[in-house]
Every structure is written in structure tokens, then in C-alpha cells.
């Protein structure tokens, strides 16, 4: 079962660039259950990596370890050259490691504009400014307007987010993550709950923005078509371990992947 090919990543990448994120032998145990069993992977800021695997393969646990939502049982996480294994969640975000969730995490009682502006202000670490009015803060307002434009959200700017359609909420969630100017974004099922016709539009918006801003993307996805069309590289996880890590065509044709994942009826 040890079909690990972590070494192959370096061959597909330009050897001179440093990985933006590197996990070394990352491990997570919940009592007797080993959810992530020594995963070593490298990710670069100019690629889009899809993570696949059956339910319980450890995909979400792995992303939670990266974001800091869970603490490591063992192993090291290096981001942008620094060991961040013990860094608090919000500090990882401030360094440019941002994740989004399966269910859009937005502020329901605020307007779309305020949602994005809040992220802009947080990125600038201006949360503790006490005596300046946010609705007169031209710098953050202009940046927010540009982001709304980029994600086609201008028409919703003054709406409260509660009643937005699901697809728009997803896009807003992504726009808020982009406002943080990440170096690497980890997306947990960016198109879940989005109608099948909209899925491609959502993915296009995300990947275009990522390429434009030079942001590395890691995304978990169940839809094999999407994975195939948008990934530069695919990582297959199975029972907490790396089953395969290669370019999409190779992974999709791998025997092990076909046996454990594709035929597993995901």
C-alpha cells in the first residue's frame, strides 16, 4: 500500500522555486483512529492542486491541519520558508495561508460590501482602529470596490447576504478570501451545493483570479470532471496516506487510484 510518490512532485516542478507549503510526515490521531498517517507533500504558488479520496481518506483532516483548526500529532508544516506547525489559526492567515469551507462562511447580517470590506480591513490588520469611520475609509472602500468588480458582485453590494442565492454566497466567500491576499488558498469543495450548470462558472472565477493574482490553489473535490479540468496536479489520499501524486492523466489512469477511489463509488 506504500505507493507514495512524493519525490515525483519535484520532477514536475521547476527545481529552482521553493515550495510555498511543505508538509513533512504530518500525522493526526483521534484516540485509536489514525486520520492522517504521515503525509509528506509540497505545493507551489503557481499551480492548482486537486485532492481526491473516498470519504474518511483524511482530506478534510489534512486541510484542517494545514489551517491550524486541528493540532498535529506529529510532523512539520513549513509555509513560505517558516515552520508554522504550532502557529495559531489567525496567524497563519496573516502570513497568507487562507482556507475556505464547504459551507460559505459569511456574515449574514452585514451587506455584501461590508463582508468584503471587513476582510480588506482584517488583512491590513486595522481591526483595532477605534476612531475612524469605516464608511469614510477611502483606501479600503476602493479596494473593496475592485474586488466586487473582479467577482461580479457589484450589483449585490448593498444587499444583506441572508437572501443571496447559494452560488453568489460561494463567490462572496471566495472574494472574501481573495481580499486577504493569500499566497496559497485551500478550498474545501468550492462547488458543493452549486447547481451543475454553475459549477464551471464558479471554478472559472476562482482559477482565473488565482492565476491573475499568482495564488497557489489546493482544492478538495468529489467531482472528477472538475478535478480533471482544473488541476495541474492531483493528490490522491486513501486511509490517511498519499496513494498517488502526479499529473491528472497519470493519476486518473493509476491502478491503485482506480481500485480505491474511482470505483469506490464516490
Amino acid at each position, binding site marked *: 500500500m506504500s505507493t507514495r510518490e512524493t519525490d515525483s512532485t519535484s520532477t514536475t516542478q521547476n527545481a529552482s522555486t521553493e515550495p510555498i507549503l511543505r508538509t513533512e510526515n504530518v500525522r493526526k490521531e483521534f484516540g485509536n483512529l489514525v486520520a492522517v498517517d504521515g503525509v509528506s507533500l509540497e505545493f507551489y504558488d503557481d499551480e492548482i492542486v486537486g485532492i481526491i479520496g473516498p470519504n474518511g481518506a483524511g482530506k478534510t483532516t489534512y486541510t484542517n491541519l494545514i489551517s491550524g483548526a486541528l493540532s498535529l500529532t506529529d510532523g512539520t508544516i513549513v509555509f513560505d520558508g517558516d515552520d508554522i506547525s504550532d502557529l495559531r489559526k489567525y496567524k497563519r492567515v496573516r502570513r497568507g495561508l487562507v482556507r*475556505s469551507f464547504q459551507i460559505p462562511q459569511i456574515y449574514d*447580517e452585514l451587506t455584501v460590501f461590508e463582508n468584503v470590506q471587513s476582510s480588506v480591513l482584517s488583512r491590513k*490588520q486595522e481591526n483595532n482602529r477605534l476612531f475612524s469611520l469605516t464608511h469614510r475609509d477611502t483606501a479600503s472602500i476602493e479596494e473593496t470596490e475592485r474586488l466586487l468588480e473582479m467577482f461580479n458582485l457589484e450589483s449585490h453590494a448593498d444587499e444583506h447576504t441572508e437572501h443571496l442565492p447559494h452560488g453568489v454566497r460561494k463567490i462572496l466567500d471566495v472574494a472574501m478570501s481573495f481580499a486577504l491576499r493569500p499566497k496559497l488558498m485551500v478550498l474545501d469543495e468550492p462547488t458543493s451545493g452549486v447547481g451543475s450548470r454553475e459549477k464551471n462558472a464558479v471554478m472559472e472565477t476562482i482559477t482565473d483570479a488565482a492565476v491573475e493574482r499568482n495564488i497557489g490553489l489546493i482544492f478538495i473535490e468529489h467531482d472528477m470532471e472538475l478535478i480533471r479540468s482544473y488541476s495541474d496536479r492531483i493528490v490522491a489520499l486513501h486511509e490517511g496516506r498519499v496513494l498517488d501524486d502526479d499529473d491528472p492523466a497519470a493519476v486518473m489512469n493509476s491502478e491503485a487510484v482506480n481500485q480505491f477511489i474511482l470505483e469506490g463509488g464516490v
Partner: protein
Amino acid sequence: MSTRLPTFGDMKAQELKGLLLDKRLLGGGVLFAALALYPGLTMNAYHTRLLAWIMCFAIAALGFNIVLGYTGLLSFGHAAFFGTGMYTVVIAMESAGITDLIVLLVLAMLAAGVVGAVIGALSVKTHEIYFALLTLALAQLLYVLAARDVGGLTRGTDGIGLSRPDFLGIPISEAPAHIYLMGFYYHVILVCLFATIAVLWLVLRSPFGLTLKMIRENETRAEMSGVPILRYRLYSMVLSAMIVGLAGALYAVVVGHVTPEYLDWTMSGEIVFMALLGGIGTFLGPIIGASGFIILQEVALGVTTYWHFTMGLVLFVVVLTLREKGIWGGAKALVDDLNERRDDS
């Protein structure tokens, strides 16, 4: 990580001009003038006292609402801050011989801020009812210590009487009680109330205020935007505690006698009640709530000895019908609704 101190934003001349022409500001100015002139024009000591009382609790309810309305945490321990404000004034006057009002108010805010920092640091990690129960337990701990006079500062349940403080070296405390209140102290409370409103209005519309709302609306997202949420919850507790402490300090001089009852959980309950009655989802709601609560209590007390029943019923009905909107939010929604209908037809 930046640890920039809070700064006064670059308020340009034009912005300032716009602010001055704001309708709300004009309304506030008129209200301030009317309230300031009221005691002198009517010479009604009872009304002046009632207004002073209302304004003290309006400050308390406004301060409390930072935590409940903006950060989204139900504290059932705000009596600790109110009581700390009161005890600081009386102990500083009677034991340390400090008689200047300004010094006393600053001391009270600092002391309440420290208590807020301690209770906050212990409780910000907990959620919802656990936060309510923990703040309740910690405040009640303070009540028990004061009631049993542990430490020998509070004289137990008898409480401590206090004399009137002076102001900037002027021996104004020698004036008769009703002149002291109607000619001086009432106006101090009035200025404090409007200063609180002005400061909070700015603070809650600043990035800081938006950050508190982010935490209320979605903690996960706030944290994933790089906000250290526990620290901001703590900040909101300390700010809230300082303002409630100021309210307590002002109120101590109005009642002239400080007892542990002001630290008791029923006091916390009343502060929550006031904020909720007016509407925790609005900025001015807590002021309306404090006024409504105290006027209702006065009226109910005048008509029947069973005013608890009246208050309980009102709280029950408000919680079930208006929730976070309260009277003020409910009225606003009603006006919006009527406007919409008129536009439609």
C-alpha cells in the same frame, strides 16, 4: 503582527463639516439642550432625580450592549462592573480621602476595566450559555465576597454611605443636596451620557466595531480572516466594563449609599432587561430600554405594589415577540413597513 495603538483617524475638515450637518447630530444637540435646561426651567427635583437615574442606566445599558449587541455574547455578570464602579467611588472617598469627582470617575472606570479584563480573560473562550453562566458565577463570587465583607473593604450587607464629591477644587459639595443635583451633578451625568454616545457611535462604526460584528456574525470566518477573536472579545469586555463602571460610579453619588445588592445577579438581569427591552440590535435601543424600564417601574410602583409582575410580563412578551429588535428596533421596522406600503399603493 501589528500592535498599533488605537488612533484617531485622519478626520479631514470636510468630513467634520459633513458630520456637523448630520441630521442625527442636530437632533442630539437639541435633545442635549432641552435636557440641560430642564431642571432649571421646571425646578422639579423629582423629575431631575428620575432623569439622572435614567441617564445612569442608559450609560450602563449602552455599555452592556457592546458585549451583547455587537460581539454577540450574553453576559449575566455586568453587575460586577456596575458594582465595582460604585464601590470604587465610595471606597476612594471614604478610605483614601479622594474627593474630586473627575478623579473618582476615572478611578472607577479603571477599576471596572480591570475587573472586566479578569472576568473577560477567564470567560472569552466559552460560548453562549456557558459564557452567560460563567460571567454569572464570577460576578456572584464578587457579590458574595462583598456581602460577607471578605477583605474588610465593603462593610458587608450594611453597605457604605458616601458624601458628595467636589469638582476641580471647587467645594461644591457644600451646596444643599437638591441644588447639588439640579445645578451640577445632573449635568455631569448628562455630559457623560452624551460623551458615551459620541464615543461609542464612532467606535462602533470604526474597523474595531466592524470586527466585533464579524465575531458576532461568524466566528469561524472572522478567525479565518486573521482576526484574533479571543483578544477582540476581551477588548469588548473591557470597553463594556469601563462604561458600565462609569455608570455605576455616577449612580453611586445619586443614591448616596452603596450596598452589595448592586453586585447581585438580579442587577445584571436588570441591565440585560433594559438593553433587550429597547433593542440590542440597534445603537440607541439600550437608551430607550433604560428609560422605558425605569419609567415603567415608577409608573407600576405608583399604581400597584406588584410591579415585578408587570416587569416580568413585559420582559416575557418582548423576548417572545420582538427579540433582538426591542421597542426601538420594532418601532423602526414598523415605520419602514408603513413607508413601504405607502410606496406600493
